[in-house]
């Protein structure tokens, strides 16, 4: 359903444009903010916050009425998710004393990322078209296909990793880990540090880029399929089924790697 008068390239480029707002020369400017760090992707913020709040609302509603007796259907679903996350965290953390933040963090990341990924299953043109009718020129509905969103989560996890490393091993222990492994010799300190530094920084970068790349590519393929006219129907269906797997898998991988990184931070070598 490419809009008339647009080339395929134009259609794709138009769909990959965030709804951004920034302040320029004392006035609010929409969609003209390239290279300005102080711009905000309103669409990503809007959808991620709405989805996050729906997650909290749904789970909070169940949690408030949670009964240890026979659970309702919705409570069973929520409990299944919670037990799955709890088991993942429990299996990964070999040493029981762990921060009470980790399991709720994993749960929030899992469900939130899952919901954001699932936005990809809404046909690519629906929401942007509706927004266009309302006068909004650009709209991207999959927040996890925005590099800012995935990096925000990746960097938060990275900061938590460093925080727990220092808290569990002490500043000295963490420094020793960075400088005296894998080669326990003073002469190898620079080499060790370079190696461990890369390994450390690679964690949040790979975490963020993996999620972003998968969802961005998925979205792009939906757009390409949407260009095919009537042939898009079977293709769209096929890709949507396949994407269903990616939606769930990427949410799970992000959660699992977060848990693993934090578990590594808890473990003394």
């Amino acid at each position, binding site marked *: 359903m490419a809009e008339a008068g647009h080339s395929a390239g134009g259609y794709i480029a138009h769909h990959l444009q965030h709804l951004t707002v920034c302040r320029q020369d004392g006035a609010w400017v929409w969609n003209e903010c390239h290279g300005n760090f*102080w711009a905000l992707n309103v669409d990503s913020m809007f959808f991620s916050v709405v989805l996050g709040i729906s997650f909290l609302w749904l*789970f909070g509603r169940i949690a408030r009425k949670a009964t240890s007796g026979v659970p309702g259907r919705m409570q069973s679903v929520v409990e299944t998710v919670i037990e799955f996350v709890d088991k993942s965290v429990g299996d990964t953390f070999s040493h029981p004393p762990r921060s009470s933040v980790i399991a709720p963090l994993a749960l929030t990341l899992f469900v939130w990322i899952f919901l954001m990924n699932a936005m990809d299953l809404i046909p690519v043109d629906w929401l942007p078209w509706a927004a266009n009718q309302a006068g909004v020129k650009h709209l991207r509905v999959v927040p996890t296909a925005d590099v*800012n969103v995935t990096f925000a989560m990746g960097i938060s996890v990275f900061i938590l990793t460093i925080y727990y490393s220092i808290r569990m091993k002490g500043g000295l222990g963490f420094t020793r880990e960075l400088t005296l492994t894998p080669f326990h010799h003073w002469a190898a300190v620079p080499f060790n540090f370079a190696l461990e530094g890369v390994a450390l920084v690679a964690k949040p970068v790979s975490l963020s880029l993996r999620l972003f790349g998968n969802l961005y590519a998925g979205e792009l393929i939906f757009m390409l399929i949407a260009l095919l006219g009537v042939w898009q129907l079977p293709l769209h269906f096929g890709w949507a089924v396949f994407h269903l797997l990616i939606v769930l898998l990427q949410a799970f991988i992000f959660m699992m790697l977060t848990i693993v990184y934090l578990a590594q931070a808890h473990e003394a070598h």
Partner: protein
Amino acid sequence: MDFNLTLIGQTVAMIVFVWFCMKFIWPPLMAAIEKRRREIADGIAAGERGQKELAEARSGAEQILQEARHKAVQVVDIAHRRSNELIGEAKQVAVTEGERLVTAARAEAGNETLRARDGLRRELAALVVAGTGRLLGREVDARTHAALLDELAAEIGRQAPGHG
């Protein structure tokens, strides 16, 4: 893919969401799950305990039944023996009593016979005296001939058993 303020906005949103989840969602749900798990574990333990008790009670009942059967057999045995004894005793008593009755009857019959014989003897003696008087033509004074009459009676009595 420009980095911009969204990065910070998202971080803030994420911190708020995680905090909310940690504060209001995770603890009550985990508490409910743990409580239910404990209750189910207790229920299963209670069920197992009940089953064990049932099995014990069953074996106890079986034992009691066995004992009762054994006792019943014993009681029936004793009853049989006792009844046999009683029957035996009763037979003995009946036989003795019968014999006693027969003896008594025989004795009575003998006495009666003797008495009848005695009477007959006396009557015969009287008849003999009367007949003799009539033959002699005069009355035989019973008093005067008492000794004679008695002797006569004795004589008849001595001969009578011989004649039957």
